[in-house]
């Protein structure tokens, strides 16, 4: 990370690195921040710390500074309630939290938390540390590269299927995935993920490696992303399919004129065919990629043909021995090249190079494509029939009268579970609930009866976590 930043600052010191609602530092300024933060961390003896900060420019400085100092940062969702965040940070053994949130500073000062010893610092405390400035200047004069030893990074999982865990990574491993990227100075990437998410870190690495500009709104709901796209001249967007669906709905309801994107990336969830078609029609000049990655396994593969799923020809086989994806018993298995070192508090995972790992993603091979059917934890057991929610959800979400849908299991004394669906009506379709019910019945009529939703509810928004639709939660 720090080497990428140093390279960008050397090649293009005056180029804007990141645009946030508060500031837009150049690569040169960001490197200065990182060096001062690194020197301050070392002077204070801080080797690991929690971060609760919404401004991506500050976060980038903190991450790069930590990498330079060999300290381990761990970001938390910036709007986590103060007491909860303090408790979670303490559970991971943190004694320092870097944040500008006054409520967190007040909580720590007053001792009103169940978190043991916790010190709160502001990022400015580190960046403007006078005693560290001299050391920073000396480092800037050094010819030696900024990184020498381990560069740890802790990333908490989104926990869409359970409680969040924290995965330990090393920047030196993560940056392997961007090793071949060439500078693309005109690209302006929207940050639709948080930098506390693995996908956000992937975008960050890509942007810095390509010496491009990150556009990072906060809040970053789809409507905020849409505004940033239009206002800040975004050319590339990476987001979850759920985020894309809401962004397009928002744009249409506002009659917004969308910029002509050159790159669209989808990840975190399966990309339905109708959404891919919609994106292709809306942004005819854009390359469309789907990435397969996870916080634990790292970046695994990407699909660039614009079709749903993965081509069977790209699976591991005798003819394709270097592929790192295969299907075993209906589940996707991968062999990670840039995965985590292990979970927090646990020893490094003894993953031998090339060792295959199950992903928990259920797949089915249809017409030469490996199509995602949901998570093993999302399967709905309806009277002994295993129902995968994704195919049901995709049929419903593809309807003109529906803006978004979430399919999940609802407990039933008669059948264990029934398939239930939450539906956000399309704002401009003009369909009433009864018409949508009729549409849904028609859309799922080819599915087995146990797969057909037995309960529909109409909502204003679908529950998401980390930009992904939350499924498998029976309510």
């Amino acid at each position, binding site marked *: 990370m720090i080497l990428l930043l140093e390279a960008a600052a050397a090649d293009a010191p005056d180029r804007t690195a990141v645009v946030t609602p508060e500031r837009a530092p150049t690569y040169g300024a960001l490197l200065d921040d990182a060096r001062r933060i690194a020197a301050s961390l070392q002077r204070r003896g801080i080797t690991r710390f929690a971060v609760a900060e919404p401004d991506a420019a500050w976060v980038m400085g903190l991450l790069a500074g930590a990498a330079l100092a060999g300290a381990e940062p761990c970001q938390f969702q910036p709007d986590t309630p103060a007491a909860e965040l303090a408790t979670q940070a303490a559970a991971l053994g943190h004694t320092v939290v870097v944040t500008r949130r006054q409520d967190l500073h007040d909580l720590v000062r007053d001792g009103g938390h169940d978190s043991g010893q916790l010190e709160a610092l502001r990022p400015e405390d580190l960046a403007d540390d006078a005693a560290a400035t001299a050391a920073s200047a000396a480092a800037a004069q050094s010819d030696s590269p900024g990184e020498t030893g381990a560069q740890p990074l802790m990333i908490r999982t989104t926990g869409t299927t359970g409680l969040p865990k924290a995965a330990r990574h090393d920047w030196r491993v993560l940056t392997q995935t961007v090793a071949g990227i060439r500078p693309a100075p005109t690209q302006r990437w929207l940050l639709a993920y948080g930098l506390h998410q693995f996908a956000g870190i992937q975008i960050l690495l890509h942007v810095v490696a390509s010496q491009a500009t990150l556009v990072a709104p906060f809040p970053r709901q789809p409507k905020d992303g849409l505004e940033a796209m239009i206002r800040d001249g975004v050319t590339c967007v990476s987001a979850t399919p759920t985020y894309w669906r809401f962004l397009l709905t928002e744009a249409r309801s506002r009659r917004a004129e969308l910029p002509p994107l050159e790159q669209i990336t989808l990840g975190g969830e399966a990309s339905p065919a109708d959404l891919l078609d919609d994106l292709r029609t809306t942004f005819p000049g854009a390359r469309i990629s789907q990435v397969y990655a996870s916080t634990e396994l790292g970046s695994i593969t990407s699909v660039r043909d614009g079709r749903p799923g993965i081509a069977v020809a790209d699976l591991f086989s005798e003819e394709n021995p270097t592929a790192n994806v295969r299907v075993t018993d209906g589940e996707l298995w991968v062999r990670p090249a840039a995965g985590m070192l292990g979970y927090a508090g646990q020893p490094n995972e003894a993953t031998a190079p090339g060792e295959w790992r199950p992903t928990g993603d259920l797949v089915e091979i249809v017409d030469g494509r490996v199509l995602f059917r949901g998570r093993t934890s999302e399967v709905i057991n*309806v*009277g002994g029939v295993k129902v995968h929610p994704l195919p049901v959800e995709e049929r419903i979400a593809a309807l003109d009268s529906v803006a978004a849908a979430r399919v999940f299991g*609802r407990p*039933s*004394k*008669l*059948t264990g579970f*029934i398939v*239930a669906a939450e539906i956000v009506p399309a704002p401009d379709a003009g369909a009433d609930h009864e018409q949508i*019910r009729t549409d849904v019945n028609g859309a799922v009529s080819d599915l087995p*009866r*146990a797969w057909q939703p*037995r*309960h529909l509810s109409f909502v204003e928004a679908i529950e998401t976590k980390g930009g992904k639709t939350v499924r498998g939660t029976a309510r």
Partner: protein
Amino acid sequence: MPADQDKVRALIGDFLVRANKGADGWTDQSPLWGDGLGLDSLEAAELSAMLEDEFGTDPFSAGDEFPETVSDILAFYAAVKTE
């Protein structure tokens, strides 16, 4: 709030229309299963969910035995009413 018997009947009627079993041809004495309304487990689960959403509880989930007729459902809510 206790469940109004006519509201229960209206909801059952709505369910039967949605389930393509017709709006007419049933009475309080109609059996839910077999030659009566002919519900299968999925349809009964759907009716159970509709009743629970509307009235907060339902006779399929609350009791030890499933109701056998429309009257049993009405009796369940009548009992709720008198508790």
